[in-house]
């Protein structure tokens, strides 16, 4: 069986343009802070030291009406340690900080709404939320998939690093602020300053976008199916390709979302591109 690295190299060699057009690449930025931490050949090291072997067919129901956030998160961890791969949270009651820090494979179903900071810092689980989520859902999420059936609050997917974060309804302001990877999909509209200081990744908004979209974005791509109230500083319209449109259609179909008839693609104009290009010693010479 070919290694992950070999498979990736083969795929890239066969379809370099297609991959690029689908935004399936990432640009290597200059400077010390843009260090690449993971590489495909390290795949075998991707499991966390204290992760658990779970069985998706082993299912547990957890009524959290009377539990606080810490107790709920500890209970999830305990169930994973016992091999439960499917956990159903009942009566979450919009409590804050539920289902955070899950660094494991897990099928988590939340039958209700979450408060602030739900599902933050996760790496790996598939989560389906039947209700709404409050501010800062999936902050710093690294991998996995979250699907929210209703609406979401502001700073949705802040500093997202990987995985798919899907909200089928409307989301608040500053969606994807400082995101560094992964995909945010919004079925409805998004508020002011979405994609603010975005570094990498892609944001897909099927509805309308509010003011200052993509303000000060460094990189990454924003696709909007509806209208855009205004673009932020250094955000410019990019050229939409057929391959990208086909990719978005496939991606939305995956989550049962209708695909808009046309898209507007927003990228960084890179006129503000001064992000740590110089080493401190070089800065001294320039300044």
């Amino acid at each position, binding site marked *: 069986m070919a290694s992950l690295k070999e498979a990736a190299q083969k795929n890239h060699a066969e379809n370099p343009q297609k991959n690029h057009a689908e935004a399936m690449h990432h640009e290597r930025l200059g400077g010390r802070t843009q260090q690449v931490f993971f590489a495909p050949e390290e795949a075998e090291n991707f499991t966390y030291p204290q992760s658990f072997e779970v069985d998706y067919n082993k299912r547990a129901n957890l009524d959290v009406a009377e539990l606080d956030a810490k107790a709920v998160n500890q209970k999830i961890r305990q169930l994973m340690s016992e091999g439960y791969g499917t956990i159903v949270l009942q009566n979450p009651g919009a409590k804050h900080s539920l289902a955070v820090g899950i660094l494991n494979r897990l099928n988590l179903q939340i039958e209700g*709404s979450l408060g602030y900071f739900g599902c933050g810092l996760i790496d790996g689980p598939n989560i389906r939320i039947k209700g709404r989520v409050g501010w800062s859902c999936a902050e710093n999420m690294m991998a996995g998939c979250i699907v929210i059936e*209703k*609406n979401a609050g*502001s700073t949705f997917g802040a500093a997202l690093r990987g995985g798919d974060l899907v909200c089928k309804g409307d989301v608040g302001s500053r969606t994807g602020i400082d995101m560094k990877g992964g995909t945010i999909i919004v079925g409805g509209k998004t508020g002011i300053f979405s994609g603010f200081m975005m570094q990498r990744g892609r944001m897909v908004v099927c509805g309308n976008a509010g003011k200052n979209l993509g303000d000060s974005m460094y990189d990454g791509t924003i696709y909007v199916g509806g209208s855009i109230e205004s673009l932020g500083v250094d955000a410019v319209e990019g050229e939409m390709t057929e391959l990208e449109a086909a990719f978005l259609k496939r991606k939305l179909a995956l989550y049962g979302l209708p695909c808009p008839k046309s898209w507007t693609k927003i990228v960084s104009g890179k006129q503000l591109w001064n992000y740590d290009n110089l080493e401190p010693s070089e800065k001294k010479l320039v300044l």
Partner: protein
Amino acid sequence: MCGIAGLIHKGRQAKIGEQMTQMLTALKHRGPDSTGLALYGAGGDGDYVMRIKFAEQEETLHGFRIAKQIAERKKTVEERLKELGAKNIQPEKAREYAYRYRFAFEGDLRRLANFIEDVEGAEILSLGKALELVKDLGDAQQIATGYALENFEGSHAIGHTRMATESDVDIRSAHPYWAYPFADISVVHNGQLTNYWNSRREMERRGHRFVSNCDSELIAVYIADRLSEGCELEKAMKESIDAFDGVFTYLVATHDSLGMAKDSMAAKPMVLYESDDFTALASEEVAIRSVFPHEIDTVDPYEGEVRVWHH
């Protein structure tokens, strides 16, 4: 940080004292310094209801002659009420330092309010035919119990849990603020107004009074000023978004309406639930869930949004 909440029943009365207490209890973690409720009920069946304090809570703990001073202030206020023509004056003790008065009055409300607040140590918390404003140090449960609010029935209410940032921890700086001297108008606010002092000086030049150094009081005064010029509530709130600098989400209640406004950066949270006969708003959904535990659809209002609901 502060937590704010509001609710309005359309066309019916309900136990709003209990409901608002539940919502504010759920928001306690956003501000433990003080709690306040502005409740809109049947009031005095056509009479005015005045909520007034004669001292700060802390003064009663450490003052030497405060009990005597409170008695003197109360006596003076009652004399002044009679002097200006108030009839059928019925005082009711809520706390050692806070009273509720019900009276019939047909004269100039501003003159009456000015005359009463001229009494040293007396501060009117609210004055109106529907509004009853209660605020004190402590959490919502303590205040609801202390002021016997749990059976209060009415149509709408706003409330606040305060984390003091820019002014003292005392009743004077607690929310809600009554829009002095306009009957039945109150305000709660979450945020910071960065043009507070400039705007305050402008309002003072226009003859408005401030009792605290809390920036939220400016909103109540601003709304009062605009209403005094004949402006509609919703228009006044829309204009306020440009008039104020900073980050804010605030709620305003009048005798029959509840309004919300959010700044143009949408930097302060607000969650909204609307049904055919009920609307609830709060800084966090967990407060709405305390009244509606079953699954409901909620949304975040957007930047610069102003909404008004009527009873």
